[in-house]
């Protein structure tokens, strides 16, 4: 775990209103694994850090992908090159891919695309075939960037790829399923692939395992810490009914 004063190195738009921000943070860039996250602090800014999956790594640069949903994300998108954030990471436990596990499907909805490029690279490094499966509401909300061997698309309105849920776009014959997206989508994914690995979002206090704020209800009856044992879990091990379906609120000054 490192705490890096990370300057913004660059940014690009990858879907309507969705931006990739790259921050220089060498020690994190060199140690992060797919599915792990970083926790960003803005000063001035809201009290708590904001967690983001690592999207990609480019030499010393750690990339995250986001859109403005509240005060913190709005401020992140207003940063100018050279502006610094405090980046804490890498945090959490990422995906585990098996060399013998067969072809991989990376299934993401909306901003759930975030952990997938790193996962694609790790899978390819293991010699695995990678199916990139990505869905959004409309074509212009789809993330334009993808990695892997073949891409499959889905949109709610059918403006690109399969019309309907991203789950319908998953090709047959995959051996390992990795998922990320809204809890509702992940719950559906769990019904079909209980062995799938999913990366969850929860509200977080610390991101480092000490506050117990990020409780994930497991079928074993316990609450796990999304920031420590998670955010990646076997989808069948989650009590989906006890997870909030929509995470949203905003803090005012």
């Amino acid at each position: 775990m490192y705490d890096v004063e990370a300057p913004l190195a660059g940014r690009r738009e990858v879907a309507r209103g969705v931006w990739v921000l790259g921050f220089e943070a060498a020690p994190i860039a060199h140690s992060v694994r797919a599915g792990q996250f970083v926790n960003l602090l803005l000063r001035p800014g809201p009290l708590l850090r904001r967690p983001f999956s690592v999207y990609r790594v480019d030499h010393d640069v750690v990339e995250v992908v986001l859109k403005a949903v509240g005060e913190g994300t709005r401020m992140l998108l207003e940063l100018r090159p050279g502006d610094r954030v405090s980046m804490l990471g890498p945090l959490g436990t990422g995906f585990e891919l098996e060399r013998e596990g067969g072809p991989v499907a990376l299934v993401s909805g909306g901003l759930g695309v975030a952990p997938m490029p790193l996962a694609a690279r790790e899978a390819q490094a293991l010699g695995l075939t990678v199916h990139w499966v990505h869905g959004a509401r409309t074509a212009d909300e789809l993330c334009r960037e993808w990695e892997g061997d073949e891409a499959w698309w889905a949109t709610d309105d059918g403006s690109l790829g399969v019309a309907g849920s991203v789950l319908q776009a998953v090709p047959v014959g995959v051996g390992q399923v990795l998922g990320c997206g809204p809890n509702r989508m992940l719950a559906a994914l769990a019904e079909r692939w209980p062995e799938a690995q999913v990366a969850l979002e929860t509200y977080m206090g610390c991101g480092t395992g000490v506050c117990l704020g990020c409780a994930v209800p497991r079928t074993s009856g316990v609450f796990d810490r999304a920031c420590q044992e998670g955010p990646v879990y076997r989808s069948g091990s989650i009590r989906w009914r006890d997870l909030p379906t929509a995470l949203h609120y905003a803090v005012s000054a």
Partner: protein
Amino acid sequence: MVEVGGVELQSPVMAASGTFGYGTDVPLCDRKALGGMVSKGIFLNARPGTPPPRIVETPSGMLNAIGLQGPGVEAVIRDYAPLWATWDFPVLVNINGESVDEYGELAARLDGVPGVAGLEVNISCPNVREGGLFFGNNPESAAAVTTAVRRRTSLPLWVKLTPAVSDISAIARACEEAGADALSAVNTFVGMSFDLGSGQPRLAFRTGGLSGPAIRPLALYLAYQVARAVSIPVVGIGGIARAEDAMEFLLAGCRAVQVGTATFVDPNAIGKIAAGISLPLVGKDPLAQSSDRPLASR
């Protein structure tokens, strides 16, 4: 070294209960600067805690409703105390009960356990028999808990006070008389927040405890009142994020401080705060100089 109610601290800056786990998960904190720590609050038995959402951010603060999730006293004695016994800084165990007897029982189990430097009794627990009001809400039940713990242990005994009470001085004095060696002031303030989409409280538990810089002026006033009311040492808690904030509590008459939420923001907040405290200040006694005017008016 700072001595507080029978516990030798490495510095006047400690980690607050529930914000430092059991001390095993905070790799970036400078452990040489850490005065000591208080464990996450435990009960006699394991508790699963409350369902999510457990956290809501608020202006300069956060609400939490963790529900005192934890493994129970025997697991703590087995899994953590042996580690604590090897550490340089003292670890106090934060104890919680649903009845006076449960507090006493916990104290007895922890008495003499190597690695346990003392007990911090959290009286911000709902008193199930008295309709769910906190034990810490009135002098009688606060004293009853303190007495029960005092009877069953020779460990240093700190009592952690509840903030939202009409007269914290009376409660502080009651705990002192019942045998507390030091007082921690204060715990979180109960608050809530509604989600406009659902029309429901944002926390699954409906209410939660407010912590962070938002509460600092309130916590400081309470710590100040407690320090004036008792002669045992007082440990100030609430919204401390910088050395300057800690010094305000020392000026208010506290012997040491605890840092909670700031650790979530900066895992080495405690190291920085401890390094930034300038000691000449600690000697000043503002109370000696200021006249005794009535304490509020708007």
